[in-house]
């Protein structure tokens, strides 16, 4: 029985570990990286829109859009969601299933292309 307002409980205690209150020590990684990633994400979105108008529609263009989407996802998950500072096992647990999912979306997109022709 623990209470959040109980000051006698050490929230960082590693020896008498209590999963209901335990949190790791946190420290800031600064704001420089955050703003850098913002400008990168903005730039990638501008590149997306530029490709939309310059290049005629094709599967090659779709692959470019999906690739740029994945790059944006890496920056959002890595920096904004702090995934690059997490333990490798934890990051793998989340990222590996997502890689299969993105593959599945792309696969069904190509698959649908054949439905109309058969």
């Amino acid at each position, binding site marked *: 029985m623990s209470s959040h307002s109980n000051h006698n409980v050490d929230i960082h205690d590693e020896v008498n570990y209590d999963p209901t209150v335990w949190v790791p020590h946190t420290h800031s990684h600064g704001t420089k990286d955050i*703003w850098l990633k913002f400008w990168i994400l903005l730039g990638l979105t501008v590149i997306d829109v530029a490709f939309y108008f310059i290049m005629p529609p094709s599967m090659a263009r779709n692959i470019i859009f999906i690739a740029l989407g994945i790059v944006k996802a890496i920056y959002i998950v890595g920096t904004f969601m702090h995934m690059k500072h997490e333990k490798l096992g934890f990051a793998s647990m989340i990222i590996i299933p997502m890689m299969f999912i993105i593959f599945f979306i792309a696969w069904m997109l190509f698959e649908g292309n054949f439905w109309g022709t058969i």
Partner: protein
Amino acid sequence: MSTQTISQSSTWGGGNSPFKVSYGKLMMWVFLLSDAFTFSSLLTAYGAIRYSFSSTDTFIEEVTPVKLEADGIPMRDGRIDFTFADNLINKYTPESASHAAHGAEGHADHTDYFVQKMGETGIFSESHWPSPDLVFNHFPGFGVIDFHGMHLPLIFVSLMTLILILSSVTMVLAVEAGQRGDKAAVSKWMLWTIIGGFMFLSCQAWEWTQFIGAGSRMYSNPYGPPTFAALFFGVTGFHGFHVFSGVVLNIIVYVNNLMGTYEKRGHYEMVEKVGLYWHFVDLVWVFVFTFFYLI
């Protein structure tokens, strides 16, 4: 029962957090993974259904640009020419609107005329998927500057993307302030995040108003196959409701922070957990933007 004899030296032996994350944060990530599955099922269905139809460009190639030119659609290099958009979109005049009100020939709105013209020439048809730049080409003017009758594809949705990325930045700045235990900075950045969320929701409401105003419903729409509007409402509606939930969670965290809940608790991890959800909503929008508006 000797549960106290677990060896602390073993990572997976119990009595510690092997991933060095709190229970709440771990469960937030597990939830987000399951939520990602939900969204990917929507996007998978969208990609497959959309590509089972042929495209606007294939249609233009088949009926030939010459035929469309004769039907009154300005063409250049095999694509619709919007350089002289006046001919195509800007047929609307206040006179023609009053004519329309009296049942005479004319069009009540620029959008009405454009969509009807596209339908008459077969560019919008149930047999092929509409090109997104012909559907989402509006920008709100609110009477100050009249953007009506201008062909501005993707501009509005790019603005929505910018708003959501910016609100993601303010959210991560709130998390960073929490890590330093700076209560005032957490309040400031949370407030900006909430404002960004409301701005995005307002944009989406306007987008839906345009789309429904042109005659789109769950079961039919003037742009293309019925599944086009059904998937638009499904995917952007599902995402929009997530944004709404995120704004509600952000407001709760903002109020809690003002009341000093996290200061008393000794850590600001709740800001980080709600932040994860907010970034996830931004992440989903990246893919909605890619699959719905670009591809």
